[in-house]
């Protein structure tokens, strides 16, 4: 489904990703872990098409197409979804209005039927149950005045409505208490099926207790420095990221050598 080859990306002229290779097949759940500044959020944003990040080398093939040639909105309509680490507030536009618009844009693009407000309300009610969100959130402005946990749940609600093929969760666990973490993770699990893939970007192992990854990739200094199964996450939790330094016999960051 997704093939990342030798991906290099910079922001403001600073190279953050220094040659990422990653292959994600249908039905798989991949975890991207790593210390702060390792480039994991950058990878998520590059996949979503954030304009601030410049891809300087490499390629990303999604569903047989060149993902990097698509605009962010095209990627979304093609089934790529990123749950934001810091979801944006959109004052004046209700959650229901916004989601229906986004949903219908995708339907139109895929040649599927658009829904009128009443039909959409039914769909939304059903999806909201998945993340245990109250109906009152649907008439409120998108993320405005939502708590951190509510915003994250709202991201998963958007994911549920848009039904993406590839979901990238960027630090979705940050700022969540244990109950919200469970709700969010269960939502993601219920949405997962053998036709879809999920990339979970996280600093900590705790989310991976709920969303069990098939593969764990550890990013450091803009490169994948270690790969393994779900047990790798537990090992990291126990030993910390410093252990990687020793394991590989080289520093976990290459900031020094870049100069």
């Amino acid at each position, binding site marked *: 489904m997704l093939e990342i080859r030798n991906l290099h990306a910079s922001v403001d002229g600073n190279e953050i990703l220094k040659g990422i290779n990653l292959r994600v097949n249908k039905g798989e759940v991949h975890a991207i872990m790593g210390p702060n500044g390792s480039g994991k959020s950058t990878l998520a944003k590059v996949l*979503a098409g954030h304009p601030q990040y410049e891809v300087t080398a490499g390629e990303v093939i999604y569903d047989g197409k060149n993902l990097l040639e698509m605009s962010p*909105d095209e990627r*979304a*309509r093609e089934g790529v979804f*990123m749950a934001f680490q810091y*979801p944006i507030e959109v004052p*004046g536009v209700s959650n229901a209005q916004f989601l229906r618009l986004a949903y219908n*844009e995708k339907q139109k693009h895929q040649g599927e039927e658009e829904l009128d407000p009443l039909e959409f309300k039914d769909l939304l009610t059903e999806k909201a149950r998945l993340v245990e969100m109250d109906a009152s959130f649907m008439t409120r402005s998108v993320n405005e005045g939502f708590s951190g946990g509510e915003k994250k749940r709202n991201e998963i609600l958007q994911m549920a409505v848009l039904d993406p093929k590839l979901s990238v969760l960027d630090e979705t666990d940050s700022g969540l208490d244990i109950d919200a973490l469970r709700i969010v993770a269960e939502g993601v699990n219920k949405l997962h099926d053998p036709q879809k893939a999920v990339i979970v970007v996280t600093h900590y192992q705790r989310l991976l207790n709920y969303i069990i990854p098939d593969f764990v990739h550890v990013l450091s200094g803009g490169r994948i420095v270690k790969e393994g199964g779900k047990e790798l996450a537990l090992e990291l939790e126990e030993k910390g990221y410093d252990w990687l330094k020793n394991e590989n016999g080289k520093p976990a960051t290459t900031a020094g050598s870049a100069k």
Partner: protein
Amino acid sequence: MHLSLAEEKQIPYASAFAELMRNRSSKEPAWSRILRQKSFAQFENVGLPTVAQEDWKYTNVSPIDRTNFEPIWVGSEHRFSAGDLAPFSYDETRRNTLVFVDGIFQPHSIHGSESRGFLLMSFSEAFAQSSYESALRRHCERNAGNHENGFTHLNTAFADGLLIVIPANVNAASIHLLFVVNHERSSAPAVFPRVLILAEENATATVVETYVGSRREKYLTNAFMEVVLERGANLQHYKLQRESVEAFHIATTRIDVGESATYEATTINLGAAISRSNIEVTMDYPGASCAVDGLYMIGSSQHTDTHSVIDHRQPHCTSHQLYKGVLDGKSHAVFNGKVFVRHGAQQTNAQQTNKNLLLSDEARVDTKPQLEIFADDVKCAHGAAVGQLNEEELFYLESRGINPALARNILTYGFAEEVIEKIKIDSIKRELNAVVLNRLHSGLEIS
């Protein structure tokens, strides 16, 4: 015969004024006739404002000065049918829609004798009732001072106003003042709406003021609104300016807020080639409060100017002001908001904000919030911002499959909505949301 330019352009006003004095004003008391004459003389003396004057620095009204407008001072024979006006009426105010044609109130526009909770009389009618004549005289004469400009002088000279009284302790029905222009009489009419709203002690009312121009014809609306709130009165005042894009709209709204009285206004400026709103709120009694909010949303080569003065003269008064602007094309907006906190006006709370969103590189805003404080125990804040849409917000919407143009429109709508949301009459709110969304082609549905 050779006339200077200045003399030439004043001829339509001068001959119309002479005719007015010969005809209508014979029924008026001497003070009113004198006031008209004095005002007209002052207009002839000072003319219309120019950019050399500080208050008009950014608003050049020479296109108004150059047009030979025909002043309209006598009521129109033309009767608009209910059907003609239906698109401009609101469910909540349907029974209390007061239609003004060419600035002059049409008494037949209001039907039935159901108790509405308010009294209506033209200034000419009020002259005959001693109880209101003195109030009218007090307000009219006060407004005729030398600090007025050429537009207000002209209004005082030509207008036949309407007095609306909300009696003490009455909670009146919502009143809609609908201003339309009849182009069958003149190709370039100058009209002079004038209304004095008097809310007596503890009276409560909602007044909606709308100006509509469906055609592209040229006309000048030169309006003067006065609001007097006595102790404990409460007024919600909404103004929607949707004049023709060829029209000029110059309006002064002067508000006196009484002791513990509350004035809340939302002004929406969408139309006109040039619009200018002067808003002057005086709080000369303790415990008065006001919220003076507004939205201007213009494009192409439109120009809009809001000059507001909020004057805290007594302790324990509160004022809030949020003005937002959305500018597209080569449009130009001016916001000048003065807040005065006079000596002794302790415990004042004054907040003022002006935020502008520029959708085009060629649009321009001149904003100047001013706070002048002469008291020491006050809480005041003001600020202004001019900016473009936020890239992170745009990316967020795009990452959900919304194309960039649509994403921009949705964020713009969200920006404007904060002001529209303040209007408490649902059908007006819906209409404005629709107007904004339609302008933006946002594809959003009204919820």
